[in-house]
């Protein structure tokens, strides 16, 4: 057996008008953890889709355990032991955990042909225990959090005896503790001789687990290095072709009047007596574990969900917000965390998506849209946010994850709001573009806007907010000034003072 499980030589992939990959060669050793880094749209996801047979390369050769292979679909790659876990999990929420794990490979009682639930449940349980997860495999998958569902997918791969697991941004919707568990389990996979390709924009994770790191820029491989040769600065330099000056730039605005005042907000079972003030020229960061109620709070304030009681004042005036429409009318903007489900209309193009909320302002005679104005504004926004490729009529489904996020941001910039709520604004965005987003938030604040940032990345919350509010189980459990807080204090408030075990909500 050769040292390499998989060898790719000169892989090219062209989409009409875009060359996503040019002459990429890469070897994956048996049982290594190989990280892929690159900016948004660099071609990482396209690369792994070729590995798994979702796309076929235009050029190049792929060797699996020494033999030339070509995958026409994911079944073919799977049969050779290659599987991918995507950011959008492919768990069926209405099936049980065990059923999910054995989906497509159900065990039957010999001679009868009926499903052997006892055996499947037992093996599923064993596989999960191996990952250090002790859950009831007969419950439906929907009862478990994203972190658990991901473990269920890994267990599914284990049961199938795969040799290579590809993870495309697996941690972008996990809480800190869930990330730790995942990283630990990736090590376990390695010990079993399973190779892992790991894609993430969080370089600290990459540096923590990778054996080797490959950097891709504009569809070309820049280089592969051993972990020992790599550090964060070097990876960033290779990724973006320059060094980053400042990771967390700060705004210059002075704190002004109260823009948003929330008092005693309640929503049964989800929000408990929430009160806070947000000033003009201020950024408040909301920290907390996934499921702490931050998104619920944002949705409630924005009128996306009904509240049971509570008062909301905007610029000193009490307002009734019954729908997002009311909220926008009062100058609010809400960037949702789930860009595919709630942010974008994937089948429509960049123009449509980025002008959806602000469409009224392009109208002549009250109703008719001035296309020239729309196109000019969209062009401007695409330049400002560095959306790539800068093709206004590109269907947003075809954009890379990070660029989709930028389109959602564009949508809210276009709406001329005064109070912005950003829910995980940099999810899936590369390091360079993150700084662009921070600059953008700062610009809004400098121009007098008030901003709330919800983020599960502690360094980010601490780096860009003036004040940090911590939530836990639907309550605000801590308030800190960014100047004097430590990560430990925030974590303590987020877990209610107790060191919670990794448990599901």
């Amino acid at each position, binding site marked *: 057996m050769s040292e390499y499980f998989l060898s790719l030589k000169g892989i090219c992939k062209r989409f*009409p008008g875009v060359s996503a990959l040019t002459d990429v060669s890469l070897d994956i050793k048996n049982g290594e953890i190989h990280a892929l880094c690159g900016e948004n749209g660099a071609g990482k996801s396209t690369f792994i889709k070729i590995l798994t047979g979702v796309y076929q390369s235009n050029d190049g050769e792929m060797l699996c355990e020494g033999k030339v292979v070509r995958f026409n679909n994911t079944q073919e790659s799977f049969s050779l032991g290659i599987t991918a876990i995507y950011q959008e999990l492919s768990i069926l929420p209405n099936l049980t955990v065990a059923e999910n794990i054995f989906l497509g490979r159900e065990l039957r009682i010999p001679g009868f042909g009926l499903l052997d639930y006892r055996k499947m449940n037992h093996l599923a349980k064993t596989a999960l225990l191996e990952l250090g997860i002790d859950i009831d495999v007969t419950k439906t998958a929907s009862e478990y959090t994203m972190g658990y569902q991901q473990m269920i997918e890994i267990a599914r791969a284990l049961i199938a005896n795969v040799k290579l697991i590809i993870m495309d941004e697996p941690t972008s919707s996990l809480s800190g503790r869930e990330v730790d568990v995942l990283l630990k389990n990736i090590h376990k996979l390695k010990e079993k001789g399973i190779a892992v390709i790991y894609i993430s924009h969080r370089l600290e994770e990459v540096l923590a687990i990778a054996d080797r790191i490959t950097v891709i820029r504009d569809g070309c491989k820049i280089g592969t290095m051993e972990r020992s040769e790599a550090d964060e600065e070097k990876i960033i330099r290779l990724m973006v072709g320059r060094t980053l000056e400042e990771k967390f730039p700060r705004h210059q605005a002075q704190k002004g009047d109260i823009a948003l005042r929330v008092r005693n907000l309640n929503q049964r079972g989800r929000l408990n007596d929430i009160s806070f003030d947000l000033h003009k020229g201020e950024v408040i960061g909301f920290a907390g574990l996934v499921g702490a109620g931050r998104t619920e709070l944002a949705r409630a304030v924005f009128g996306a969900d009904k509240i049971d009681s509570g008062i909301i004042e905007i610029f000193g005036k009490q307002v009734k917000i019954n729908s997002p429409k009311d909220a926008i009318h009062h100058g609010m903007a809400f960037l949702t965390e789930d860009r595919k489900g709630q942010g974008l209309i994937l089948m*429509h*193009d960049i123009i*449509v998506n980025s002008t*959806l909320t602000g469409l009224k302002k392009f109208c002549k005679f009250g109703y008719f849209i001035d296309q020239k104005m729309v196109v000019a504004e969209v062009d401007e926004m695409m330049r400002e946010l560095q959306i790539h490729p800068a093709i206004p*009529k590109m269907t947003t489904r075809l954009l890379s994850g990070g660029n989709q996020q930028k389109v959602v941001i564009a949508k809210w910039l276009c709406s001329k709001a005064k109070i912005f709520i950003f829910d995980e604004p940099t999810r899936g965005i590369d390091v360079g573009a993150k700084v662009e987003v921070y600059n953008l938030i700062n610009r809004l604040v400098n121009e007098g806007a008030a901003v709330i940032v919800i983020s599960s990345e502690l360094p980010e919350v601490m780096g860009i907010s003036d004040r940090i509010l911590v939530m836990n189980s639907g309550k605000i459990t801590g308030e800190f000034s960014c100047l004097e807080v430590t990560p430990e204090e925030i974590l303590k408030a987020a877990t209610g003072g107790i060191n919670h075990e990794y448990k599901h909500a």
Partner: protein
Amino acid sequence: MNTSTPEVQGHGGTQKTQFRQLIKKMGSLIGLIGLSLVLTFASPYFLTMDNIMNVARQSAINSLIAIGMLLAILTAGIDLSVGSILALSTVMMGIVVVKMGMSPIIGVGVCLGIGILLGWLNGMMLTKMSLPHPFISTLGTMNVARGLALIVTAASPISNFPTSIQFLGAAFIGPIPVSFILVLVVYAAFHVFLNYTTVGRYIYAVGGNPEATRLSGISIDKVLIIVYAISGLMAALGGLVLVGRVNSAYPLAGLGYEFDAIAACIIGGASFMGGEGTVWGTLIGSMIMAVLRNGLNLLSVSAEMQTVAIGIVIILAVYIDVLRHKAAARVKA
């Protein structure tokens, strides 16, 4: 901008991709031309002025109803009540004008008004009563309106309309039927409405992703109510043309018209999943159906066989569309 063809992939790229895009946009038009060519060879009468105008006239009613249906389909909905709305609105016009002797203007107002009202009710039931799918609200209205049409007429037709009411359905300007001119004007208006007004864009947005649309501050309920009201209005307008053509309003008019309208939209490239479909595609879809019926008539194919043929065409048209989408999803440039 024309987002009604959202799948833009080769962006001024190579000539090959531009050509491919053109084919994609023109898919159903090429179908229509191909069909016409075949019929031209098969029947010498097909390409005469008389026959073409005949087709134009015959397609008018379905075209008018289909454009209303398109709005519902764009929002990932459906309107099953159009045939019944057509019947009820026209027999009410008959009662007002013929039986009660009121002015034709009032009659037309009653006809269109009932169309809008029933459509509006469809929308209200869907949104305010939160019925789970427009299939249900419009299925209900379909039965109620048909039943009422039979009751108010005691199941017998109403004839002898004044010529002013027959104008839309029966008159010609030169060789061109007024009904076809009406179709062109209406379609041009819908093109502008869907592409260049906020409500039009919101209709596409609602069908594409209702949750994202709602969170963008758009009242989905309002959009849906407008959509079904317009669909009702177009059904009544189709009825007005029908009354003109046959000089009679009858309670069983428009039976099954909803399916022709749906077929026109689908053949024209609209997606049942919502968010995709164009005004001109729908017109071509409606023309394909009319040309097909006309051609089969010219070739003296029996009515029964014609029904079979239409069924096959619907399935083929959608299948070709599916293939095109598949090809787009796994481009091997």
